[in-house]
């Protein structure tokens, strides 16, 4: 007769302890010996691409994903190498990152902060992603960046333009290559003054979320500084599709410029409505009525069709820039060649920034000789590089924001094809879009990166 040592109380105790252990998120226990969360094994490393695959920015998300896949291909030695050929740092050699093959997992942010955090958490906890990248909405980027900071994971922001991402909500583990609302205002205002004069009255329609607020603030500050008056500003819901109720009162408001602080589907619809209501052909205060779209994208321009013609805005990058403005913007043609050959059309600026961010992360790990987030942060802070399509660029240590030239563009009147919808009006030098790290629009003196977090 055997005698069991198990007792009911013992089983319950053991079960409770084991259950509690299993309930601890993986990133708090995995590879604790390595000193940081999700330390990769010897053969492969997993990156997490968190982009909107549904929702109003889904087309941007799809292009981001294409660029991420291309970047992984190039990091692993596939294809023609793309910008690895032109990148000023030569640390990457096409053998993955620190000798490990690069794998990736994807998540759908749905352009919603909650969904984005859930998918990022899943990639960190279940898939062991060492770095999360993505965006296409500043609300999403800010939320995921905060999550990555807590988890001790690097966040390389994709398409996020709000000041807050590297302003009041900046985090030590987060880095942004894309430009921001302040830079748009600083680059666009002088061109607006030159094209439309300094005696103008502006009416703002603003998407009712994080990015809309900071963009309106930046454009108002820049245009008012040069003499424009802001007649009114109206918040519009992100889910709005018919903007006629918002557009109709504009003509009688005393304004002679309409600023559409909208992006993606919002911008396509609001611009279409504005054109339908005759604003582009109207006269007000004895001047031609003008429409301005602060943040442009080729995908939006394609969606807006002929309505975009003649309308000014700003961009982070354009696939034609090296051909038009020369070798200063080297890397552009190499990327366009790789992307165009693989997918059959030129890349958008969303694709460009995500591709560059992936390479910058990989390069920083390679130079640091470690995947530990704090080592990567140190490698990226103050990093100056070139050959990535934007000219000489600095990753500023104070706020983890990239500083580079900004493009002012205009919708082409007679595009030759569906990819050639915008023309570059001016390139604003980096000096004119640089600001102090404690600038009031960036959270002021209270804004802080905090401490970098290695996680487990």
């Amino acid at each position, binding site marked *: 007769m055997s005698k069991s040592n198990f007792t009911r109380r013992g089983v319950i105790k053991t079960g409770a302890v084991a259950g509690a252990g299993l309930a601890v998120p993986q990133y708090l226990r995995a590879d604790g010996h390595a000193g940081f969360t999700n330390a990769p094994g010897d053969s492969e490393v997993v990156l997490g691409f968190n982009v909107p695959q549904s929702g109003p920015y889904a087309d941007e998300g799809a292009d981001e994903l294409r660029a991420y896949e291309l970047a992984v291909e190039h990091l692993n030695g596939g294809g023609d190498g793309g910008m690895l050929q032109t990148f000023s740092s030569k640390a990457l050699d096409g053998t993955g990152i620190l000798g490990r093959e690069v794998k990736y997992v994807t998540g759908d942010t749905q352009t919603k902060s909650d969904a984005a955090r859930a998918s990022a958490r899943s990639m960190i906890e279940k898939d062991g992603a060492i770095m999360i990248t993505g965006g296409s909405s500043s609300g999403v980027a800010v939320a995921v960046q905060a999550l990555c900071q807590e988890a001790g994971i690097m966040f390389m922001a994709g398409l996020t333009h709000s000041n807050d991402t590297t302003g009041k909500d900046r985090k030590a583990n987060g880095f942004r290559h894309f430009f921001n609302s302040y830079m748009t205002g600083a680059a666009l205002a002088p061109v607006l003054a030159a094209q439309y004069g300094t005696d103008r009255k502006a009416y703002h329609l603003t998407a009712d979320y994080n990015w809309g607020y900071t963009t309106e603030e930046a454009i108002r500050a820049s245009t008012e500084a040069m003499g424009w008056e802001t007649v009114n500003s109206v918040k519009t819901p992100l889910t709005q599709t018919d903007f006629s109720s918002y557009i109709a009162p504009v003509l009688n408001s005393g304004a002679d410029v309409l600023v559409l602080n909208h992006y*993606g589907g919002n911008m396509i619809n609001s611009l279409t409505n504005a054109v339908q209501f005759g604003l582009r052909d109207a006269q007000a205060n004895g001047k031609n009525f003008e429409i301005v779209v602060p943040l442009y994208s080729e995908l939006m321009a394609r969606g807006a069709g002929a309505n975009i013609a003649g309308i000014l805005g700003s961009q982070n990058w354009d696939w034609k820039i090296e051909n038009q403005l020369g070798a200063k913007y080297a890397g552009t043609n190499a990327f366009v060649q790789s992307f165009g050959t693989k997918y059959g059309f030129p890349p958008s600026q969303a694709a460009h920034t995500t591709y560059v961010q992936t390479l910058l992360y990989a390069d920083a790990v390679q130079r640091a000789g470690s995947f530990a987030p704090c080592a990567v942060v140190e490698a990226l802070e103050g990093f100056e590089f070139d050959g990535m399509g934007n000219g000489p660029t600095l990753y500023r240590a104070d706020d983890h924001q990239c500083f580079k030239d900004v493009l002012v563009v205009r919708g082409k009147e007679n595009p030759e094809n569906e990819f050639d919808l915008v023309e570059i009006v001016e390139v604003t030098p980096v000096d004119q879009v640089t600001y102090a790290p404690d600038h009031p629009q960036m959270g002021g003196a209270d804004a802080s990166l905090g401490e970098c977090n290695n996680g487990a």
Partner: protein
Amino acid sequence: MDQIIVQVLNGLDKGSAYALIALGLTIIFGTLGVVNFAHGALFMMGAFCAVITSKILSASHRVVDETRTDFLGNPLEVETFYVQDWFGMAAGQTIMEWAVPIAIIFAIPVMILVGFAMERGLIKHFYHRPHADQILVTFGLALVIGEIIKYTFGANPIQTPAPPAFTGSLDFGVFLGYEAQTIMYPYWRLVYFFFSAIIIAAVFAFLQFTTFGMVVRAGMADRETVGLLGINIDKRFTFMFGLAAAVAGVAGVMYAPIVAPNYNMGLDFLVLSFVVVVVGGMGSLPGAVAAGFLLGILESFASMPAIVDILPGINQIIIYLVAILILLTRPRGLMGRKGVMEE
């Protein structure tokens, strides 16, 4: 005053869309007793009929132009449109520009067939199930249709412009003695309003003045008795489902130039249209139309900057507030019939 007129005009086109969708919903509910949450998807499919027609009419083949290069430096492949090959440059261009009105001819039979397929293939199996089951299955169907459209056409809105003859705006204020450019109203929205009025009148005339319509109305009042008279009322009701789908479809076709079609536009309209049906009175066709215009205009007023400044966010909830108010004072809605949805 000019701002009030502007918002009334704005409300008319939005109200027209609500009225047309709500009309179809009410027809389906009144005849088949089905709460069809896929009706917004039918509106969206109509809008995509316009997109598809536009794509078909602008189908092209590529001709290599050795003298020019594409973005990769390869010889440029120039798009050449078949309609221009067949009908000449000018006529071909006109055909492509009139894609939206032409789409109506294509949309009506397609949407009737879609309606028949939906009713015979799925919804008939849920006639004797609770309304909650009907809502679940039709809402699920709406999501599936939306995802198919997204997979096929992408997530971003697709511009489907009105014919050039209807682009631009009418200076409405001049007719009322205001200064030029005080009240501008896009021509196409005016077209949409009149088009909706014609469709609504045609549906009412069909139900009121034809024998078929008379039988359908009798069936709506007392299905069992009509059946006992030897009339196959089910077949007529199936046709009415197809008719309701066609009404939603043409409403979507004509709405495409107003708001660029996207996969989600059906859901955008669906919930509001249900509120319209409830406010108008379940089963009441005139109620659905009246409530559609009423709520469309109210929504426009609530979006006026002067009102939003005082009550931020009121434009998002005004329809629901009014719905609550009306249902508290008139539980059957504006023109609801006794006994409908009361068992």
